[in-house]
Protein backbone atom coordinates (compact mmCIF):
# COMPACT_ATOMS: atom_id res chain seq x y z
CA UNK A 1 0.00 0.00 0.00
CA UNK A 2 0.99 3.59 -0.62
CA UNK A 3 3.77 5.40 1.22
CA UNK A 4 3.48 9.06 2.19
CA UNK A 5 4.55 11.43 -0.55
CA UNK A 6 3.40 14.92 0.37
CA UNK A 7 3.31 17.18 -2.69
CA UNK A 8 4.87 20.61 -2.44
CA UNK A 9 5.20 23.01 -5.37
CA UNK A 10 4.40 20.16 -7.78
CA UNK A 11 0.79 20.39 -6.67
CA UNK A 12 0.54 23.99 -7.90
CA UNK A 13 1.94 23.10 -11.33
CA UNK A 14 -0.27 20.02 -11.59
CA UNK A 15 -3.42 22.07 -10.90
CA UNK A 16 -2.21 24.80 -13.27
CA UNK A 17 -1.66 22.23 -16.02
CA UNK A 18 -5.11 20.72 -15.56
CA UNK A 19 -6.73 24.13 -15.53
CA UNK A 20 -4.91 25.29 -18.67
CA UNK A 21 -5.98 22.06 -20.39
CA UNK A 22 -9.57 22.79 -19.36
CA UNK A 23 -9.31 26.23 -21.00
CA UNK A 24 -7.97 24.71 -24.22
CA UNK A 25 -10.12 21.56 -24.18
CA UNK A 26 -13.15 23.80 -24.45
CA UNK A 27 -13.24 26.70 -26.89
CA UNK A 28 -12.81 29.27 -24.09
CA UNK A 29 -9.09 29.94 -24.59
CA UNK A 30 -9.35 30.26 -28.37
CA UNK A 31 -12.45 32.47 -28.38
CA UNK A 32 -11.21 34.81 -25.62
CA UNK A 33 -7.70 35.12 -27.07
CA UNK A 34 -8.83 35.74 -30.64
CA UNK A 35 -11.52 38.22 -29.55
CA UNK A 36 -9.12 40.11 -27.27
CA UNK A 37 -6.27 40.24 -29.77
CA UNK A 38 -8.51 41.36 -32.65
CA UNK A 39 -10.19 44.03 -30.54
CA UNK A 40 -7.03 45.36 -28.89
CA UNK A 41 -5.00 45.44 -32.10
CA UNK A 42 -7.74 46.95 -34.25
CA UNK A 43 -8.57 49.72 -31.76
CA UNK A 44 -4.88 50.57 -31.45
CA UNK A 45 -4.36 50.56 -35.23
CA UNK A 46 -7.25 52.96 -35.68
CA UNK A 47 -5.68 55.33 -33.13
CA UNK A 48 -2.19 54.80 -34.57
CA UNK A 49 -3.15 55.78 -38.11
CA UNK A 50 -5.10 58.81 -36.87
CA UNK A 51 -2.37 60.20 -34.57
CA UNK A 52 0.67 58.78 -36.34
CA UNK A 53 3.07 58.64 -33.36
CA UNK A 54 5.41 55.68 -32.89
CA UNK A 55 4.60 54.75 -29.31
CA UNK A 56 2.26 52.40 -27.44
CA UNK A 57 0.73 54.82 -24.96
CA UNK A 58 -2.63 54.70 -26.73
CA UNK A 59 -2.57 50.90 -26.46
CA UNK A 60 -1.70 50.91 -22.75
CA UNK A 61 -4.34 53.58 -22.06
CA UNK A 62 -6.95 51.40 -23.70
CA UNK A 63 -6.06 48.16 -21.94
CA UNK A 64 -7.57 48.67 -18.43
CA UNK A 65 -11.12 49.02 -19.79
CA UNK A 66 -10.71 46.11 -22.16
CA UNK A 67 -9.18 43.89 -19.48
CA UNK A 68 -11.86 44.87 -16.95
CA UNK A 69 -14.19 42.98 -19.28
CA UNK A 70 -11.96 40.13 -20.52
CA UNK A 71 -10.26 39.10 -17.26
CA UNK A 72 -13.53 38.33 -15.40
CA UNK A 73 -14.40 36.11 -18.37
CA UNK A 74 -11.26 34.09 -17.58
CA UNK A 75 -11.78 33.91 -13.82
CA UNK A 76 -15.55 33.49 -13.56
CA UNK A 77 -15.38 29.72 -14.06
CA UNK A 78 -12.37 29.00 -11.84
CA UNK A 79 -14.26 28.05 -8.67
CA UNK A 80 -17.90 28.50 -9.69
CA UNK A 81 -17.50 25.67 -12.22
CA UNK A 82 -15.90 23.41 -9.59
CA UNK A 83 -18.90 24.04 -7.34
CA UNK A 84 -21.43 23.52 -10.14
CA UNK A 85 -19.89 20.21 -11.17
CA UNK A 86 -19.23 19.33 -7.50
CA UNK A 87 -15.63 18.49 -8.44
CA UNK A 88 -14.47 20.85 -5.71
CA UNK A 89 -14.92 18.04 -3.19
CA UNK A 90 -12.68 15.76 -5.28
CA UNK A 91 -10.08 18.49 -5.75
CA UNK A 92 -9.91 19.61 -2.14
CA UNK A 93 -9.75 16.09 -0.71
CA UNK A 94 -6.61 15.35 -2.75
CA UNK A 95 -3.38 15.62 -0.74
CA UNK A 96 -2.76 19.24 -1.69
CA UNK A 97 -3.31 22.38 0.34
CA UNK A 98 -6.16 24.72 -0.52
CA UNK A 99 -3.69 27.53 -1.22
CA UNK A 100 -1.86 25.24 -3.69
CA UNK A 101 -5.11 24.70 -5.58
CA UNK A 102 -5.75 28.46 -5.53
CA UNK A 103 -2.24 29.23 -6.81
CA UNK A 104 -2.49 26.52 -9.47
CA UNK A 105 -5.69 27.95 -10.89
CA UNK A 106 -4.29 31.47 -10.63
CA UNK A 107 -1.17 30.42 -12.52
CA UNK A 108 -3.33 28.93 -15.30
CA UNK A 109 -5.35 32.16 -15.55
CA UNK A 110 -2.09 34.14 -15.68
CA UNK A 111 -0.94 31.81 -18.47
CA UNK A 112 -4.01 32.57 -20.55
CA UNK A 113 -3.59 36.28 -19.86
CA UNK A 114 0.04 35.90 -20.99
CA UNK A 115 -1.28 34.58 -24.28
CA UNK A 116 -3.38 37.76 -24.62
CA UNK A 117 -0.22 39.82 -24.19
CA UNK A 118 1.72 37.69 -26.67
CA UNK A 119 -1.09 38.42 -29.12
CA UNK A 120 -0.33 42.13 -28.79
CA UNK A 121 3.36 41.73 -29.72
CA UNK A 122 2.77 42.55 -33.42
CA UNK A 123 2.21 46.14 -32.26
CA UNK A 124 5.70 46.78 -30.79
CA UNK A 125 7.26 44.76 -33.62
CA UNK A 126 5.49 46.99 -36.13
CA UNK A 127 6.51 50.16 -34.25
CA UNK A 128 10.17 49.12 -34.19
CA UNK A 129 9.97 48.37 -37.91
CA UNK A 130 8.43 51.77 -38.67
CA UNK A 131 10.39 54.04 -36.35
CA UNK A 132 12.32 54.39 -33.13
CA UNK A 133 9.97 53.95 -30.14
CA UNK A 134 11.23 54.13 -26.54
CA UNK A 135 11.88 50.48 -25.52
CA UNK A 136 11.94 51.40 -21.79
CA UNK A 137 8.51 52.98 -22.05
CA UNK A 138 7.13 49.90 -23.79
CA UNK A 139 8.73 47.53 -21.25
CA UNK A 140 7.40 49.45 -18.24
CA UNK A 141 3.98 49.63 -19.90
CA UNK A 142 3.94 45.86 -20.29
CA UNK A 143 5.08 45.47 -16.66
CA UNK A 144 2.12 47.65 -15.63
CA UNK A 145 -0.17 45.47 -17.72
CA UNK A 146 1.14 42.28 -16.11
CA UNK A 147 0.64 43.73 -12.63
CA UNK A 148 -2.81 45.04 -13.51
CA UNK A 149 -3.78 41.63 -14.90
CA UNK A 150 -2.33 39.80 -11.91
CA UNK A 151 -4.45 41.90 -9.53
CA UNK A 152 -7.66 41.59 -11.54
CA UNK A 153 -7.21 37.84 -11.96
CA UNK A 154 -6.69 37.38 -8.21
CA UNK A 155 -9.73 39.59 -7.56
CA UNK A 156 -11.87 37.68 -10.10
CA UNK A 157 -10.82 34.28 -8.76
CA UNK A 158 -11.73 35.42 -5.25
CA UNK A 159 -15.19 36.54 -6.45
CA UNK A 160 -15.67 33.24 -8.30
CA UNK A 161 -15.01 31.38 -5.03
CA UNK A 162 -17.27 33.76 -3.12
CA UNK A 163 -20.29 33.72 -5.45
CA UNK A 164 -20.34 30.08 -6.55
CA UNK A 165 -22.09 31.08 -9.78
CA UNK A 166 -20.28 31.92 -13.02
CA UNK A 167 -22.66 34.61 -14.24
CA UNK A 168 -22.79 36.36 -10.87
CA UNK A 169 -18.99 36.15 -10.61
CA UNK A 170 -18.60 37.64 -14.10
CA UNK A 171 -21.09 40.47 -13.58
CA UNK A 172 -19.79 41.45 -10.13
CA UNK A 173 -16.13 41.24 -11.24
CA UNK A 174 -16.82 43.30 -14.35
CA UNK A 175 -18.84 46.00 -12.58
CA UNK A 176 -16.32 46.32 -9.74
CA UNK A 177 -13.46 46.16 -12.23
CA UNK A 178 -14.90 49.02 -14.27
CA UNK A 179 -15.47 50.96 -11.05
CA UNK A 180 -11.85 50.45 -9.98
CA UNK A 181 -10.66 51.67 -13.38
CA UNK A 182 -13.12 54.49 -14.05
CA UNK A 183 -12.75 55.99 -10.57
CA UNK A 184 -9.19 56.85 -11.60
CA UNK A 185 -10.35 58.82 -14.64
CA UNK A 186 -10.09 62.60 -14.13
CA UNK A 187 -13.42 63.34 -15.80
CA UNK A 188 -15.25 60.74 -13.73
CA UNK A 189 -13.59 62.09 -10.58
CA UNK A 190 -14.80 65.61 -11.45
CA UNK A 191 -18.35 64.41 -12.07
CA UNK A 192 -18.53 62.50 -8.75
CA UNK A 193 -16.98 65.43 -6.87
CA UNK A 194 -19.55 67.71 -8.49
CA UNK A 195 -22.40 65.68 -7.00
CA UNK A 196 -21.34 66.49 -3.45
CA UNK A 197 -18.39 68.91 -3.47
CA UNK A 198 -18.08 69.06 0.32
CA UNK A 199 -17.52 65.28 0.54
CA UNK A 200 -15.00 65.07 -2.35
CA UNK A 201 -15.89 61.42 -2.85
CA UNK A 202 -14.52 61.40 -6.41
CA UNK A 203 -11.13 62.60 -5.21
CA UNK A 204 -11.11 60.04 -2.43
CA UNK A 205 -11.93 57.22 -4.87
CA UNK A 206 -9.31 58.49 -7.32
CA UNK A 207 -6.55 58.71 -4.76
CA UNK A 208 -7.35 55.79 -2.46
CA UNK A 209 -9.37 53.18 -4.33
CA UNK A 210 -8.69 53.26 -8.06
CA UNK A 211 -5.99 51.13 -9.62
CA UNK A 212 -5.57 53.49 -12.54
CA UNK A 213 -3.13 55.99 -10.93
CA UNK A 214 -0.84 53.08 -9.97
CA UNK A 215 -1.08 51.58 -13.45
CA UNK A 216 -0.47 54.96 -15.07
CA UNK A 217 2.91 55.33 -13.37
CA UNK A 218 4.13 52.32 -15.37
CA UNK A 219 2.53 53.56 -18.60
CA UNK A 220 4.39 56.87 -18.18
CA UNK A 221 7.66 54.97 -17.89
CA UNK A 222 8.22 55.04 -14.12
CA UNK A 223 8.65 51.88 -12.09
CA UNK A 224 7.23 53.09 -8.80
CA UNK A 225 7.92 50.89 -5.79
CA UNK A 226 4.74 51.91 -3.97
CA UNK A 227 2.70 50.90 -7.04
CA UNK A 228 4.59 47.62 -7.28
CA UNK A 229 3.79 47.07 -3.61
CA UNK A 230 0.14 48.04 -4.19
CA UNK A 231 -0.38 45.45 -6.94
CA UNK A 232 1.70 42.75 -5.24
CA UNK A 233 0.14 43.01 -1.80
CA UNK A 234 -3.43 43.31 -3.07
CA UNK A 235 -3.01 40.30 -5.39
CA UNK A 236 -1.57 38.23 -2.53
CA UNK A 237 -4.39 39.33 -0.22
CA UNK A 238 -7.08 38.26 -2.69
CA UNK A 239 -5.39 34.88 -3.21
CA UNK A 240 -5.17 34.34 0.54
CA UNK A 241 -8.83 35.40 0.95
CA UNK A 242 -9.73 33.03 -1.89
CA UNK A 243 -8.29 30.07 0.06
CA UNK A 244 -10.06 31.23 3.24
CA UNK A 245 -13.41 31.45 1.45
CA UNK A 246 -12.99 27.95 -0.01
CA UNK A 247 -12.17 26.46 3.38
CA UNK A 248 -15.04 28.31 5.06
CA UNK A 249 -17.66 27.35 2.48
CA UNK A 250 -17.36 23.57 2.41
CA UNK A 251 -20.75 21.91 2.27
Amino acid at each position, binding site marked *: *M*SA*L*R*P*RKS*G*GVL*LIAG*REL*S*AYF*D*SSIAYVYTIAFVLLANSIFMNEFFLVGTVDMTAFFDLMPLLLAFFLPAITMRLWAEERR*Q*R*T*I*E*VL*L*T*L*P*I*RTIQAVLGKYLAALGLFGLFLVGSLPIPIMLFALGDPDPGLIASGYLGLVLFGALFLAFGAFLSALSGDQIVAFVVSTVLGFALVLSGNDQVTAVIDGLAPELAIGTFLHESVSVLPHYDTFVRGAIDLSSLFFFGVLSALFLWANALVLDAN*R*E
Partner: protein
Amino acid sequence: MIRVENVSKRYGSTLAVDSVSFEIAAGEIVGFLGPNGAGKSTLLKMMSTWLPPTSGKIEIAGHDVTKDPLLVRHQLGYLPEHNALYDGMRVDRYLSFIGKARGLSGSELADRIAWAVDKCSLQAVTKKLVRQCSKGYRQRIGVASALLHDPPVILLDEPTHGLDPLQVVAFRDFLLGLSEGRAIFFSSHILAEVVAISERILIINHGKLLCDAPLSALEESARVNGGDLERTVLEIVKSERRFGDAAPEEVLA
Protein backbone atom coordinates in the same frame (compact mmCIF):
# COMPACT_ATOMS: atom_id res chain seq x y z
CA MET B 1 -7.35 1.94 11.01
CA ILE B 2 -10.46 4.16 11.35
CA ARG B 3 -11.44 5.65 14.71
CA VAL B 4 -14.51 7.87 15.05
CA GLU B 5 -14.95 9.24 18.56
CA ASN B 6 -18.10 11.12 19.67
CA VAL B 7 -18.30 12.94 16.36
CA SER B 8 -21.07 15.47 15.81
CA LYS B 9 -21.83 17.83 12.96
CA ARG B 10 -24.19 20.75 13.35
CA TYR B 11 -25.61 22.94 10.58
CA GLY B 12 -27.24 25.86 12.35
CA SER B 13 -29.94 24.34 14.52
CA THR B 14 -29.80 20.96 12.72
CA LEU B 15 -27.72 18.21 14.23
CA ALA B 16 -26.77 16.17 11.14
CA VAL B 17 -24.52 13.75 13.01
CA ASP B 18 -24.99 13.19 16.73
CA SER B 19 -22.13 11.81 18.88
CA VAL B 20 -21.21 8.92 16.60
CA SER B 21 -18.43 6.55 17.69
CA PHE B 22 -17.00 3.41 16.09
CA GLU B 23 -13.75 1.82 15.02
CA ILE B 24 -12.84 -0.18 11.94
CA ALA B 25 -9.77 -2.41 11.83
CA ALA B 26 -7.64 -3.41 8.84
CA GLY B 27 -9.22 -6.28 6.93
CA GLU B 28 -12.79 -5.23 7.74
CA ILE B 29 -15.44 -4.26 5.21
CA VAL B 30 -18.15 -2.35 7.01
CA GLY B 31 -21.45 -1.40 5.43
CA PHE B 32 -23.17 1.83 6.39
CA LEU B 33 -26.93 1.87 6.06
CA GLY B 34 -29.48 4.60 6.53
CA PRO B 35 -32.32 6.36 4.74
CA ASN B 36 -31.69 9.47 2.64
CA GLY B 37 -30.74 12.41 4.83
CA ALA B 38 -29.81 10.18 7.78
CA GLY B 39 -26.28 11.60 8.02
CA LYS B 40 -24.32 8.95 6.07
CA SER B 41 -22.75 11.31 3.58
CA THR B 42 -22.07 13.99 6.21
CA LEU B 43 -20.12 11.48 8.29
CA LEU B 44 -18.18 10.25 5.25
CA LYS B 45 -17.42 13.85 4.25
CA MET B 46 -15.98 14.46 7.72
CA MET B 47 -13.91 11.27 7.50
CA SER B 48 -12.60 12.37 4.09
CA THR B 49 -11.41 15.75 5.55
CA TRP B 50 -13.90 17.62 3.34
CA LEU B 51 -15.98 18.79 6.31
CA PRO B 52 -14.62 19.59 9.77
CA PRO B 53 -16.52 17.92 12.65
CA THR B 54 -18.31 20.32 15.00
CA SER B 55 -17.04 18.18 17.88
CA GLY B 56 -15.37 14.84 18.41
CA LYS B 57 -12.33 13.25 16.83
CA ILE B 58 -11.72 11.20 13.69
CA GLU B 59 -8.48 9.33 13.07
CA ILE B 60 -7.58 7.68 9.78
CA ALA B 61 -4.53 5.40 9.86
CA GLY B 62 -3.45 7.13 13.08
CA HIS B 63 -3.80 10.69 11.75
CA ASP B 64 -6.32 13.23 12.98
CA VAL B 65 -8.50 14.53 10.11
CA THR B 66 -8.54 18.05 11.57
CA LYS B 67 -4.89 18.35 12.56
CA ASP B 68 -3.24 16.40 9.72
CA PRO B 69 -5.63 16.49 6.77
CA LEU B 70 -2.87 16.07 4.18
CA LEU B 71 -1.49 12.94 5.86
CA VAL B 72 -5.04 11.57 6.11
CA ARG B 73 -5.69 12.21 2.41
CA HIS B 74 -2.57 10.26 1.48
CA GLN B 75 -3.94 7.24 3.31
CA LEU B 76 -7.43 7.57 1.96
CA GLY B 77 -9.29 6.52 -1.15
CA TYR B 78 -12.56 8.43 -1.23
CA LEU B 79 -15.52 8.21 -3.59
CA PRO B 80 -17.86 11.14 -2.82
CA GLU B 81 -21.63 10.89 -2.90
CA HIS B 82 -22.19 12.45 -6.33
CA ASN B 83 -19.02 11.02 -7.88
CA ALA B 84 -18.20 14.30 -9.56
CA LEU B 85 -15.60 14.03 -12.32
CA TYR B 86 -13.96 16.53 -14.66
CA ASP B 87 -16.28 16.02 -17.63
CA GLY B 88 -14.02 17.68 -20.18
CA MET B 89 -11.02 15.43 -19.49
CA ARG B 90 -10.18 12.17 -21.21
CA VAL B 91 -10.54 9.21 -18.85
CA ASP B 92 -6.85 8.21 -18.96
CA ARG B 93 -5.79 11.83 -18.41
CA TYR B 94 -8.20 12.16 -15.51
CA LEU B 95 -6.73 9.07 -13.84
CA SER B 96 -3.24 10.37 -14.52
CA PHE B 97 -4.11 13.74 -12.95
CA ILE B 98 -5.51 12.09 -9.81
CA GLY B 99 -2.53 9.71 -9.61
CA LYS B 100 -0.02 12.56 -9.88
CA ALA B 101 -1.89 14.57 -7.26
CA ARG B 102 -1.54 11.54 -5.01
CA GLY B 103 2.21 11.46 -5.54
CA LEU B 104 2.49 8.73 -8.18
CA SER B 105 4.81 9.22 -11.14
CA GLY B 106 6.66 7.43 -13.93
CA SER B 107 6.26 3.69 -14.31
CA GLU B 108 4.52 3.39 -10.94
CA LEU B 109 1.80 5.75 -12.15
CA ALA B 110 1.46 3.86 -15.45
CA ASP B 111 1.28 0.53 -13.61
CA ARG B 112 -1.35 1.73 -11.17
CA ILE B 113 -3.48 3.24 -13.94
CA ALA B 114 -3.24 -0.05 -15.89
CA TRP B 115 -4.26 -1.94 -12.73
CA ALA B 116 -7.22 0.36 -12.03
CA VAL B 117 -8.37 0.30 -15.67
CA ASP B 118 -8.23 -3.50 -15.64
CA LYS B 119 -9.95 -3.96 -12.26
CA CYS B 120 -12.69 -1.47 -13.05
CA SER B 121 -13.09 -2.67 -16.65
CA LEU B 122 -12.46 0.74 -18.18
CA GLN B 123 -10.50 -0.45 -21.23
CA ALA B 124 -13.25 0.61 -23.65
CA VAL B 125 -13.38 4.21 -22.46
CA THR B 126 -9.82 5.25 -21.58
CA LYS B 127 -9.52 7.47 -24.66
CA LYS B 128 -13.02 8.90 -24.32
CA LEU B 129 -13.99 12.13 -22.61
CA VAL B 130 -15.55 11.59 -19.19
CA ARG B 131 -18.72 13.33 -20.37
CA GLN B 132 -19.11 10.69 -23.10
CA CYS B 133 -19.21 7.83 -20.57
CA SER B 134 -22.37 6.18 -19.28
CA LYS B 135 -23.41 6.43 -15.64
CA GLY B 136 -22.03 2.97 -14.92
CA TYR B 137 -18.67 3.85 -16.45
CA ARG B 138 -18.57 7.15 -14.58
CA GLN B 139 -19.10 5.32 -11.32
CA ARG B 140 -16.28 2.93 -12.15
CA ILE B 141 -13.99 5.83 -13.09
CA GLY B 142 -14.71 7.32 -9.66
CA VAL B 143 -13.89 4.03 -7.94
CA ALA B 144 -10.72 3.60 -10.04
CA SER B 145 -9.52 7.09 -9.08
CA ALA B 146 -10.21 6.39 -5.40
CA LEU B 147 -8.10 3.22 -5.47
CA LEU B 148 -5.32 4.41 -7.75
CA HIS B 149 -2.75 5.07 -5.03
CA ASP B 150 -3.40 1.77 -3.25
CA PRO B 151 -4.73 3.36 -0.06
CA PRO B 152 -5.01 1.43 3.21
CA VAL B 153 -8.35 3.10 4.02
CA ILE B 154 -11.20 3.23 1.51
CA LEU B 155 -14.37 5.32 1.93
CA LEU B 156 -17.07 4.83 -0.67
CA ASP B 157 -20.32 6.78 -0.64
CA GLU B 158 -22.98 4.80 -2.53
CA PRO B 159 -20.39 3.04 -4.72
CA THR B 160 -22.89 0.85 -6.58
CA HIS B 161 -25.17 3.75 -7.50
CA GLY B 162 -25.72 3.65 -11.26
CA LEU B 163 -24.29 0.17 -11.78
CA ASP B 164 -26.38 -2.53 -13.44
CA PRO B 165 -26.93 -5.84 -11.55
CA LEU B 166 -24.03 -7.59 -13.28
CA GLN B 167 -21.71 -4.71 -12.52
CA VAL B 168 -22.87 -4.74 -8.89
CA VAL B 169 -21.92 -8.41 -8.57
CA ALA B 170 -18.53 -7.77 -10.19
CA PHE B 171 -17.97 -4.79 -7.91
CA ARG B 172 -18.79 -6.86 -4.83
CA ASP B 173 -16.19 -9.44 -5.81
CA PHE B 174 -13.69 -6.70 -6.55
CA LEU B 175 -14.22 -5.08 -3.14
CA LEU B 176 -13.95 -8.41 -1.34
CA GLY B 177 -10.65 -9.01 -3.13
CA LEU B 178 -9.35 -5.65 -1.88
CA SER B 179 -10.20 -6.16 1.76
CA GLU B 180 -6.96 -7.81 2.89
CA GLY B 181 -5.02 -5.35 5.05
CA ARG B 182 -7.42 -2.52 4.29
CA ALA B 183 -10.28 -0.88 6.15
CA ILE B 184 -13.20 -0.41 3.80
CA PHE B 185 -16.23 1.64 4.80
CA PHE B 186 -19.04 2.07 2.29
CA SER B 187 -22.51 3.53 2.45
CA SER B 188 -25.64 2.36 0.75
CA HIS B 189 -29.37 2.50 1.23
CA ILE B 190 -29.80 -0.95 -0.30
CA LEU B 191 -29.64 -3.67 2.34
CA ALA B 192 -28.94 -6.52 -0.09
CA GLU B 193 -25.74 -4.84 -1.29
CA VAL B 194 -24.47 -4.26 2.22
CA VAL B 195 -25.29 -7.81 3.31
CA ALA B 196 -23.54 -9.28 0.26
CA ILE B 197 -20.26 -7.53 0.98
CA SER B 198 -19.89 -6.78 4.68
CA GLU B 199 -19.90 -8.81 7.84
CA ARG B 200 -20.47 -5.79 10.02
CA ILE B 201 -23.20 -3.22 9.60
CA LEU B 202 -23.65 0.29 10.91
CA ILE B 203 -27.10 1.88 10.74
CA ILE B 204 -27.70 5.60 11.13
CA ASN B 205 -30.86 7.69 11.21
CA HIS B 206 -31.39 11.33 12.14
CA GLY B 207 -27.65 11.53 12.77
CA LYS B 208 -27.67 8.89 15.50
CA LEU B 209 -25.82 5.61 15.16
CA LEU B 210 -28.54 3.05 15.90
CA CYS B 211 -26.62 -0.11 15.18
CA ASP B 212 -23.01 -1.27 15.08
CA ALA B 213 -23.27 -5.03 14.97
CA PRO B 214 -22.04 -8.06 13.10
CA LEU B 215 -24.36 -9.18 10.32
CA SER B 216 -24.79 -12.45 12.24
CA ALA B 217 -26.29 -10.56 15.22
CA LEU B 218 -28.85 -8.89 12.99
CA GLU B 219 -29.66 -12.19 11.32
CA GLU B 220 -30.05 -13.80 14.74
CA SER B 221 -32.36 -11.01 15.83
CA ALA B 222 -34.42 -11.48 12.67
CA ARG B 223 -34.56 -15.24 13.28
CA VAL B 224 -35.58 -14.86 16.96
CA ASN B 225 -38.33 -12.44 16.04
CA GLY B 226 -39.55 -14.51 13.14
CA GLY B 227 -39.03 -11.73 10.64
CA ASP B 228 -36.60 -11.19 7.83
CA LEU B 229 -33.44 -9.09 7.91
CA GLU B 230 -35.00 -6.26 5.94
CA ARG B 231 -37.80 -5.89 8.47
CA THR B 232 -35.34 -6.00 11.35
CA VAL B 233 -33.28 -3.19 9.83
CA LEU B 234 -36.42 -1.20 9.12
CA GLU B 235 -37.54 -1.55 12.74
CA ILE B 236 -34.15 -0.42 13.99
CA VAL B 237 -34.40 2.68 11.81
CA LYS B 238 -37.97 3.35 12.94
CA SER B 239 -37.42 2.66 16.64
CA GLU B 240 -34.54 5.15 16.84
CA ARG B 241 -33.22 3.05 19.72
CA ARG B 242 -29.75 1.66 19.52
CA PHE B 243 -29.73 -1.99 18.50
CA GLY B 244 -28.70 -4.04 21.53
CA ASP B 245 -30.02 -1.53 24.06
CA ALA B 246 -33.35 -3.33 24.00
CA ALA B 247 -34.10 -7.02 23.77
CA PRO B 248 -34.46 -8.24 20.18
CA GLU B 249 -38.13 -8.95 20.87
CA GLU B 250 -38.65 -5.33 21.89
CA VAL B 251 -37.02 -4.06 18.76
CA LEU B 252 -39.75 -5.64 16.70
CA ALA B 253 -42.51 -4.71 19.13
